[in-house]
């Protein structure tokens, strides 16, 4: 039922991407978020797509798996695309029926925006798919380390993030369990008018909230019982290691950025 949600999920495999240092992956993913917006014509989008496809195939995450994770946001992508197609009035008029006017510029804009969204989601999913939550948190804590000078609670922030990531699957499992229990009592989550369907989620959301609060309290207790007192003086079992391939990956990304700058309009 909820098997399609891959947010924050790790896909175990052995690939160059899996072996990369989490810091370089975080930097790369973050950087990628910005350079996607550099693309503004067919050539630059082509370059970006090629880069993304190569990265995905390097990661050994089956495309089918990634696609299933994309499914939930496909609706959003299609919706944005249609909005652009109908509302942008640039270029030649391609089609007209009543008040509906479709312009060439709108179609192109729609496709570009859809591509942009897809590329963004694929790359960011790839980050969590190839990096364990612990590595992501460690990497993030390292990268944000300098901010400690300004008394920013970097460690706490990283911990919060790792806890959230850690509990996504748990929460999904719980959702599925309660959904089943209510379905066994005749609840219907999948059909009926929108209003009824929204109402049908109350029996799901209330128990989820209750159990989440309970779990948070238990977790806090368990952490305190084991003497947790924040990041000060805390040492690490596993050290992060920066390899040549990490430097290499960042150089590649810089080259990609350069080529995008050269090729864009």
């Amino acid at each position, binding site marked *: 039922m909820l098997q399609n949600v891959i947010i924050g999920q790790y896909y175990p495999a052995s690939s160059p991407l899996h072996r990369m240092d989490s810091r370089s992956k975080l930097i790369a993913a973050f950087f990628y978020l910005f350079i996607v917006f550099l693309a503004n014509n067919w050539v630059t989008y082509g370059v970006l797509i090629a880069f993304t496809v190569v990265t995905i195939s390097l990661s050994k995450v089956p495309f089918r798996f990634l696609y299933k994770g994309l499914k939930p946001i496909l609706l959003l992508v299609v919706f944005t695309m249609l909005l652009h197609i109908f509302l942008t009035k640039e270029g030649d008029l391609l089609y007209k029926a009543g008040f509906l006017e479709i312009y060439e510029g709108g179609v192109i804009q729609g496709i570009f925006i859809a591509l942009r969204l897809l590329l963004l989601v694929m790359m960011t999913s790839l980050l969590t798919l190839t990096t364990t939550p612990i590595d992501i948190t460690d990497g993030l804590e390292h990268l944000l380390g300098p901010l400690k000078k300004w008394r920013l609670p970097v460690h706490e922030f990283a911990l919060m993030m790792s806890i959230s990531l850690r509990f996504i699957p748990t929460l999904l499992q719980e959702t599925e369990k309660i959904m089943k*229990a209510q379905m066994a009592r005749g609840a219907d989550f999948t059909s009926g008018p929108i209003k009824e369907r929204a109402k049908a989620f109350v029996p799901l959301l209330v128990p989820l909230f209750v159990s989440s609060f309970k779990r948070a309290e238990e977790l806090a207790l368990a952490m305190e019982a084991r003497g947790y007192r924040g990041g000060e003086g805390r040492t690490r079992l596993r050290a992060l290691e920066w390899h040549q391939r990490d430097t290499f990956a960042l150089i590649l990304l810089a080259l990609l950025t350069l080529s995008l700058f050269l090729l864009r309009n």
Partner: protein
Amino acid sequence: MEGTPFERRALHDINLDIPDGTFLALIGHTGSGKSTLIQHLNGLLKPSAGSIKMGSTELKAGGKKQDLKSLRKKAGIVFQYPEHQLFEETVEKDIMFGPRNFGVSEESAKQTAARVIEMVGLPEGVLTKSPFDLSGGQMRRVAIAGVLAMNPEVLILDEPTAGLDPAGRVEIMELFYSLHERNNLTTILVTHSMEDASRYADEIAVMHKGELYLHGKPTDIFNEREALKKAGLDVPETVQFLQKWNEKSGLNLALTKFTVEELAKQVSQSLKKRGN
């Protein structure tokens, strides 16, 4: 999901026929597929191969959408930790949730709520309280009442006593057993406890690694001690005691019910006979 490292075969090659009115205990080690099996029984999970037949309704692999609602009305499932499914403002409303979903009128659902709350041994005053103000054991009873309110013909219990204290355990199990007897239900009890299985079940089915490993009358199952051990299980204490007793005394006592009381009766009778 198929074709990924997360793929796992949960159930395989299961042929199980449960006659009407049977009390079946489904036993197995953690991860043996018990819970997965029972979720197939009312269409919460759909088989990727094979079929499930309940009464006149049949669920086939790859079949089109069937009338799951009538199937779910027929088979009530009490899930593990059922108190997690409570959500309404009052106990009464929560119990009415099932019947209302199956098209019962508000009036008659209210009457049902009053009836089942008594069945699970709670005072009627509880009906107007919030379920979240109750104790854990009371919440469990309310959740069970919510399933009973649907008036199921088949009652499926997934470790209904997990996490309860010993007294609560016995009370809940006795409650299910008397319901089973009185309303002529078909009951399927998923459990780890050989003691519970031996005490209440007409038939025992043992699951191991997603397959049906043993199935038969308790007496026959308990003769297969070696096979049970392979599945990570053992015969109940009463049977263990009796086997040792028979070995030492050279007698051949047999149990028909596997309770401690029955065992004590048998042993004291045989002692008396020997005394004569």
